[in-house]
């Protein structure tokens, strides 16, 4: 898994780490049961504070992406985790809402939008 931090992005470092781990989980790059890098080793390697990594890992746990086992490490939860599913559904809703807004601007009838969704789903059947 690639993990990089930027000092100039304006996004807090713990948030950057969180986002990158999240997308690695959602994309399947990090599999269920896999361990995240040790908190203290990651802090040393990225030259950031231990508490910054702790915050990222704690928030990932609260959102249901990982499970923190005291003394053993942080492990990736399955994508089937209810919380992760909810997050994904939420993402679908956001993007569909965007699509609806755009279709209204384009004065596209609802039927056409439904049809377009069907076509796209068929095209992306393997993805």
């Amino acid at each position, binding site marked *: 898994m690639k993990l990089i931090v930027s000092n100039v992005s304006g996004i807090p*470092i*713990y948030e950057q780490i969180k986002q990158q781990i999240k997308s690695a989980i959602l994309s399947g790059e990090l599999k269920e049961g896999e361990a995240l890098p040790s908190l*203290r*080793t990651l*802090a040393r390697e990225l*030259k*950031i*504070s*231990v*508490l910054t990594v702790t915050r990222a890992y704690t928030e990932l746990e609260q959102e249901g992406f990982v499970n923190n086992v005291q003394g053993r490490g942080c492990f990736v939860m399955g994508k089937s985790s209810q919380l992760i599913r909810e997050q994904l559904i939420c993402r679908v809703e956001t993007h569909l809402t965007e699509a609806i807004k755009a279709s209204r601007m384009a004065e596209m009838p609802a039927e056409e939008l439904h049809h377009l969704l069907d076509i796209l789903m068929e095209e992306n059947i393997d993805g």
Partner: protein
Amino acid sequence: MDNYLEVRHLSKAFPEFQLRDISFSLPPGYIMGLIGPNGSGKTTTIKLILNMLKRESGEIFLMGMDNLTHEKEIKSELAVVFDSNCFCGDWKVSQIENYISVFYKNWNSGTFSRLIRSFQLSPEKKVSELSRGMQMKLMLACAFSYGARLLILDEPTSGLDPVSRDELLTILSRYIEDGEHSVLFSTHITTDLERAADYITYINDGSLFFSGEKNEFLDMFRLVKGGPGELTGELKSRLLGLRIYSTGFEGLIRTEDLKLFSHLTAESPAIDDIMVFTNQKEGAL
């Protein structure tokens, strides 16, 4: 395990300077930066912790022990590095161990030679021939060779070039990696702390301004910027510090006050910004 360092209501008065009611604590496994402008009381605080100055009131515990009644036990668990070289300039690197090790019952010769090698200190060189960065590494090698669990550094990075500063920070983060060592680190070069420190203790003019997690410290404030017309009386009264220039202004505000001025550009401050804006003298711009 309790906190490695615990300072409670520490006070000390000098004819021209007073340290007032300083309290903070450092748990095992973390780095704390002690910050403040020159003359704010950082070194006084460190000297009081080390019992190099006599405190007037308050309590100090190191490894859970009172720093006055258990001074000897504490000092075998504690390493201190000041900003200036503490060894005789004529000593060779290879001789240092003979002179120093007798004072520590836990001295580990193997660790010392390993560190000398990994810090690339040449054994035949005299202390006076070493650069600032190398002298610092020599002091750290000694400090790490008797198993000290708490390392206190006073202005370690002033006078070091960026390469040596980076090396020092790498050494420190490796030191705390196992979760059983901690570092208290005073500095006014706050970019060093921006990434590596877990906790910040900010002393300003002898009083405690903040002590807690660094991320929380940075989250407490925002830097707001705007054009000349946007600086209202209401805003001015909320700003902790302000700089006005011909085409606009910038100031520091508490994050909770920001919602009153949502139309302004706001950004996260650096530790330096917070120090600069909270240290403005009345009327000075």
